[in-house]
């Protein structure tokens, strides 16, 4: 049995890339830096951001997704059958290389296994979080020129991701989070989308979380029970904790990854406000059901702001842990069962 302190603190996944790494990536893209040096840069950056997370007191760190430019692009580049025609606008002056499915999809080698192995080498934590973009989001944010339907494409991707998760489990991973920000955008597709996402969990016995953000949680909530994940990491700070009680009441026995830090706002949260938010959740669910995390990945913030926000989050958790200790609740079990 693996124990964690009650109200374990974690991140959603991404962390701001150090400025020097951004320069290295730019140089590598322009052909001015070899692959070997870029990998060295990525590794050094992972060491730096993992230490940063550990130093502020994060219980379950990630590698900050230092190697990933974008959450869909990264996976599409590593699965055979995708192609890229060029950047597509997401908002304002922000673009991403939207992949195109042009052939039958194949996983020819592990996608994030090396990321996990390196992370385990450099962290002093027993449990880390490995994030994988979910099949529905990859499909929704890609063009499909090959499969007859989006549904067929999502199920195909789910099989590939399931293989990846199993391989991570074999390598010792204890906690994998599937990121599905697009999941609720087409409510009519929810029934089969949930079935497809569940394919990812088949034959897997480690902890699996599902992250859904900036979405209509009233579309998601009816599926909490059906989704074979023990934890739902959701964004609440951005929406001023609207719908929190409603969502928690629908949670049943599962866990919430409670988003208490707004990642789209540079303003550092007030510790009391974070304490209040967690207390609000504690009024509805048991302490054992709550993990505490930011709303989403931190990569759009500056490194200093990200670090300070995490520090506030951890400090708020410490306040509540003192209260829970008085009630005899100090640790929880890393739960894998759905």
């Amino acid at each position, binding site marked *: 049995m693996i124990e964690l302190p009650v109200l374990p603190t974690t991140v959603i996944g991404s962390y701001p890339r150090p400025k020097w790494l951004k320069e290295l990536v730019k140089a590598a893209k322009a052909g001015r830096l070899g692959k070997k040096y870029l990998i060295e840069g990525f590794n050094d950056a992972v060491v730096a951001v993992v230490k940063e997370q550990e130093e502020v007191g994060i219980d379950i760190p990630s590698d900050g997704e230092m190697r990933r430019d974008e959450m869909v692009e990264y996976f599409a580049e590593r699965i055979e059958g995708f192609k890229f*025609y*060029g*950047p*597509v*606008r*997401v*908002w*304002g*002056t922000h*673009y991403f290389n*939207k992949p*195109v499915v042009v052939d039958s999809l194949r996983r020819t080698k592990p996608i994030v296994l090396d990321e996990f192995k390196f992370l385990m080498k450099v962290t002093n934590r027993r449990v880390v979080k490995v994030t994988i973009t979910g099949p529905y989001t990859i499909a*929704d*944010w890609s*063009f*499909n*020129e090959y499969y007859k339907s989006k549904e067929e494409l999502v199920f195909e991707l789910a099989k590939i991701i399931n293989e990846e998760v199993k391989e991570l489990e074999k390598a010792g991973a204890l906690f994998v989070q599937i990121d599905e920000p*697009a999941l609720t*955008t*087409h409510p009519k597709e929810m029934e089969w989308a949930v079935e497809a996402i569940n394919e990812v969990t088949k034959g897997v016995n480690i902890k699996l979380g599902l992250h859904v953000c*900036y979405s209509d949680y009233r579309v998601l909530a009816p599926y909490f029970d059906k989704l074979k994940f023990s934890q739902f990491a959701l964004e609440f700070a951005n929406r001023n904790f609207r719908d929190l009680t409603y969502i928690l009441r629908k949670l049943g026995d599962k866990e919430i990854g409670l988003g208490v830090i707004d990642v*789209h706002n540079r303003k550092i949260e007030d510790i009391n406000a974070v304490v209040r938010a967690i207390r609000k959740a504690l009024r509805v669910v048991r302490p054992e059901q709550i993990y505490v995390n930011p709303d989403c990945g931190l990569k759009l913030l500056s490194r200093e702001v990200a670090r300070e926000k995490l520090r506030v989050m951890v400090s708020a958790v410490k306040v509540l842990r003192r209260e829970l200790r008085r009630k005899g609740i100090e640790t929880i079990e890393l739960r894998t069962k759905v």
Partner: protein
Amino acid sequence: MGIETALIGSLPRPLILSKYVGRFRSGKISEVVLERKYVVYTKRALSKLISMGYKVVTDGMFRHDDILNPFISFIDGVKVNGLYRFYENNFFFRIPIIEDMIKLKKNVPLITWYLKAKEIVSEVTKEEVIIKPVIPGPATFVSHSINMYYKDLGKFIADYVANVLEPLIGGLKKVGADVIEIHEPALVASRLKPKVIDLSLRGIYELSESLGVKIWLQVYFGSLRRLVKYLKPSADLILSLDLVESPEDIRLLKVLKGVTESIALGIVDARNTKIERFKEMKRVVDKALRYSFKDIYLCPNTLLDFLPEVIAYRKLRKLARFVKAFRGD
């Protein structure tokens, strides 16, 4: 009866131009430099389109982030807020918060931008090319706003029509814009109250009549079916349908013949990279020809922002080739 190709809404803004926009916003280049870039890239895009045979275009909307921005920053009473998803797309727009009575600001650059686009076209060709300024319609504006001011939705729509659209379209008309492209995805893709649909369409008809402009009413992401009962006969209305999202709307042409002489058919899928085939396009046009519209325009079904630049042009070129082949040019 004429069949023409048309561009609606935006072209994909080149990444390099967006980088200049970003550099301008962070104070690294001046407005003069950015303006020069806008002209260069708009000219490049319009030259391509005109050489393909497009006679009805927009300026490609390179100055815009989305259909509401920077437009909403030219309206008093509006605060520009955070990012919101644009329908079910992985595309986001900055949402307007209505904090006070809305009113178009003085000396908005939209008229200058239109004039610049006209100037570019006259440099590119001596032939007549129609350029349509693109403006969000009343239903789309109100349903994509966070309204903190108006207690009455009717008053909100009326103010948008009278205080924003009327002076703006009036100003554009004065400098030669005879066709205005009004984007109204909300009319077909959002769950609107009948009152909102009715007031919005009524506002559009009134503007067209009082200002003497043709309105190109652009809907997308849904079927026009629910609008039919609100439409009235007008020679100054060009209805543009999204036949990719709602192919069944082709059956509405019989009814639409009674309200408009000109129809635009969105047959190029601006949300998928697969290139359309002549056979598919011909099938739609053959059906449309049964109803003797004065003008039939063929165009993308929605904004081309959703596609990579190279694919967008490939699709537009194919459409132009189809029209030429169909007409026997």
